[in-house]
Structure formats: C-alpha cells, structure tokens
C-alpha cells in the first residue's frame, strides 16, 4: 500500500471563481459587541494604514472581472469611511450586487439618500436584542433607538432590509420578540446567527454560549414563526456548531466562494485566516486580486483534500468532501494546528474541548462578585485593548 501512495498522481484541484467579495473598509466601529468577528488585534499597527478609496475602487473592478457577483461593504462600520458613496458608485458601475452591512451608526438621511442614488442594492442592519436596554448593554453603547430610526429610513427609501441579530445565552430566550421586532421594522430577511466562537467570541465563550435547552427552544420558535410568516420574511437560522457532531463547511470550503479584503488591503479566505501562522497574506497594493485568488500560498493551503490529516483523510462517514474538515481557524484556535480536524467533529481526537465547553454552560451560572445578574461579564471589543 505504501508503494501505491508513493506513486499516486498528485491531486488535481479545479479552482473556481469567487462569488462574494467581503470588503472590510475599516475596523473603526461605534459598537463594542463581545462576539465581533474582527481579529482581536484590530488596534495593531498593521490595520491603521487603511486602503485609500481609489485602491478599493480598483479592487471592486478586479473582483467583477474575476466573477464576483455579491459585494459586502462591511467593517467595523463601513459608514465611517467618508468615501462610501463613491465606493458604491464604482460597485454599481462594475455590476456588483452591493450590501451595506452596518450598525447604522451613523446613518444620516442625506448620505443614505446618496447611497440609494448611487445604486446601493441592499442594507443589513445589526440589532443586538429586541429590548432597548439589553441591546445597548450587549453592544456596549447607546444605539437601539437610532437603529430603529435607520431601519425606518431604509423602508422609506424602498431598500430591501435585512436585520441581523447574533444570538447567545443573553438574548436567545427572546427570539420570538426579536422575530416580531424584525417584522415590525419591515425586514425582508432576518438573520439569526448563533455565535461562532472565533476572535472576540472565543474570548467571551463562556459568557456567550447558550445551553442546549435554550437552543432547542430557539429553534422551535423559529420553525413556528417561519410557518406563520411564509415568504413575507425569510428567517435564516445559523446553527451553533458547538452543539453539532459534524463540523460546518466553513465559508463553503476554504477559498472556494469568498474573498475577503481587510482594511489595510490584506487578502484572506475568511475573517480569521490572518491568525494562521506561517502563511502571510498578500496585499492588493502589491498584486492583483486574480493572481492572489489563484496563486497565493495562503489561498492554496487548504484547497482540495490532500492537506488533510487523519481522521479526515479516511473519514469514517466519508464526509470530507462535504464539510472540508470544518473550520481551519477553529482547528488552530482549539488544537494549535490549522490542518487538524475541526474539534467540533465527533471523530476528532480533540472533540473533548467542545464537550467540556458545553458541560460548563449546562451548569448553573456562577454567583458572586464576578457575575453580573448571575452572568459572566463580557470582554468588550475595543481598539485600545488590543
């Protein structure tokens, strides 16, 4: 058998073209959400030199030439970039379908009207909770009422609106009221995204992770409300992978559908990929998007299946072509090896770190000086902290 392996043909990988460009325009943000998907070192020097607008405009044109259809203008808070209207104009001229992923702080009427005139296709506004006080406590700033006004403005201008709410142990019990809030706001879509434990969320994992009973209740409500609402409002329920026995196909496969550009121009396959040691991201200031997509070491590191270790390599349920071994960044964060099987997988030798985390939250919340109303305190996202 060893001979057969040694003489095996090298794996042929067909690299398709990306469909989605995630443009992180800045890491500045008025919110301090403890589950932010940005890197925990957003305050580092490397992110302070933000890509000028004309470079972003070139990147958008290159993305369209590369086959990208959808553009997510995100951050941090994309409205913090004063050139946002010019960026949307270029997106529209390039034929991209643009989504503004915003905290809606700031969201001034004249500027939003200008975005509409520039051809912005879709607005997604984050909400932290349906209760104003709880929402502002989670986001770490006074924001709720302004978000409600911003949502009304998007409807006035006839933008399709998506409401996004990240779920965790402090808001998942109110999922019914969150759904009804989104309905009142006139949302076309509601994303109920159970926290994925990367970056800031991993720091806050014990304070965020719901119990299994909370999740089951949440899912039950979602199924019932979907039935009631029909096509009027689509409800997306993003599964919390810590309660799964098989890993999620992270980003639809490493460097398969999406390409992400950080505020400084570094290009990554996902939000957290900069954490992987030994694989330096390339930068759009030095090289074209197309060359980076097809040729960079970082993008090619985990394409196909040849990089896989056991148990993925000979997966007992032959699922490695479906889940691609799960999330590389989660494997790195929890096992120290980015090429390991995602420990969410029941066959991972490290699966116990997941079951231990579940067991801890299944127990009653600690009482004492540390606990706020019986809950662990959050570490809030902050530029200075890092």
């Amino acid at each position: 058998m060893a001979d057969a392996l040694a003489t095996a043909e090298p794996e042929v990988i067909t690299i398709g073209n990306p469909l989605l460009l995630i443009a992180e325009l800045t890491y500045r943000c008025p919110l301090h959400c403890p589950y932010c998907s940005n890197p925990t070192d957003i305050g580092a020097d490397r992110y302070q030199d933000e890509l000028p607008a004309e470079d972003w405009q070139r990147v958008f044109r290159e993305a369209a030439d590369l086959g990208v259809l959808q553009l997510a203008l995100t951050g941090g808070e994309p409205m913090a970039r004063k050139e946002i209207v010019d960026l949307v104009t270029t997106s529209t001229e390039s034929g991209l379908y643009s989504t503004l992923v915003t905290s809606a702080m700031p969201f001034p009427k004249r500027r939003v009207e200008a975005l509409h005139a520039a051809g912005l296709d879709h607005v997604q506004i984050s909400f932290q909770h349906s209760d104003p006080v709880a929402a502002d406590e989670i986001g770490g700033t006074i924001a709720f009422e302004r978000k409600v006004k911003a949502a009304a403005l998007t409807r006035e201008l006839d933008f399709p609106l998506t409401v996004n709410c990240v779920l965790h142990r402090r808001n998942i019990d109110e999922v019914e009221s969150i759904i009804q809030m989104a309905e009142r706001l006139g949302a076309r879509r509601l994303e109920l995204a159970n926290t994925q434990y990367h970056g800031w969320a991993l720091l806050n994992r014990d304070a965020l992770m719901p119990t299994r009973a909370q999740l089951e209740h949440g899912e039950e409500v979602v199924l019932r409300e979907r039935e009631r609402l029909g096509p009027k409002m689509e409800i997306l329920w993003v599964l919390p992978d810590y309660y799964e026995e098989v890993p999620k196909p992270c980003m639809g496969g490493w460097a398969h559908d999406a390409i992400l550009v950080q505020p400084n121009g570094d290009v990554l396959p996902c939000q957290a990929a900069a954490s992987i040691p030994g694989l330096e991201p390339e930068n759009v200031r030095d090289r074209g998007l197309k060359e980076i997509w097809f040729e960079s070491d970082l993008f090619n590191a985990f394409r196909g299946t040849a990089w896989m270790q056991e148990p993925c390599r000979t997966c007992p349920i032959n699922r490695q072509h479906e889940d691609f071994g799960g999330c590389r960044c989660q494997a790195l964060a929890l096992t120290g090896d980015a090429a390991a099987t995602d420990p969410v997988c029941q066959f991972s030798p490290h699966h116990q770190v997941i079951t231990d985390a579940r067991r801890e939250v299944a127990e009653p919340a600690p009482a004492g000086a540390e606990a706020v109303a019986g809950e662990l305190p959050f570490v809030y996202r902050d530029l200075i902290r890092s």
Partner: protein
Amino acid sequence: MPIERPKLATGVRLHHDRVREQHVLLFPEGALVLNETAVEVLELCDGERSLDDIAGVLGERYEGADVKDDVSELLDGIGERGLVVDADG
C-alpha cells in the same frame, strides 16, 4: 395565489455574468442561475404587462405556441421565494 401583474421584487435584478457566461437573478445574499426561457419571461415582468400579455408576447415569438401555463408555473416558482411579486398586490 397566481401572480397577475408580475414584477421583480425590490432589490432583485437581472444580471449577465460575463465570466461564467450565464444570466443570473441577483437578490440579497443570493443568486439564481437562469435558463434562456426564464430570462425571456423575467425581462417582460415590468409590473405593467399582465400574465396574459407576457404569454402573448412569447407565444408570438414562438409561432403561436400556448405558453401561458409554462409562464405561470415559472413565476409561481420564483414568486414562492419572494423574488417576483404582483404589482397589483
């Protein structure tokens, strides 16, 4: 309920994907690959023409074929996803 005077929902648009050489319907967080027939139908969904008007235009284009059921079925399918709505509704 059948759609009588169809139009693309807000935030939904037709797009020619020149890299993959195909037509797609773009909408929030998604894309739907369209065949030639679907493109011809959707191009006529302007919120002015009725279902009968659309079937009439296409019937003429295809030498008098009766395409109303096909058009209706296609629009119901896309309508179920909220991508096409009734201009009168």
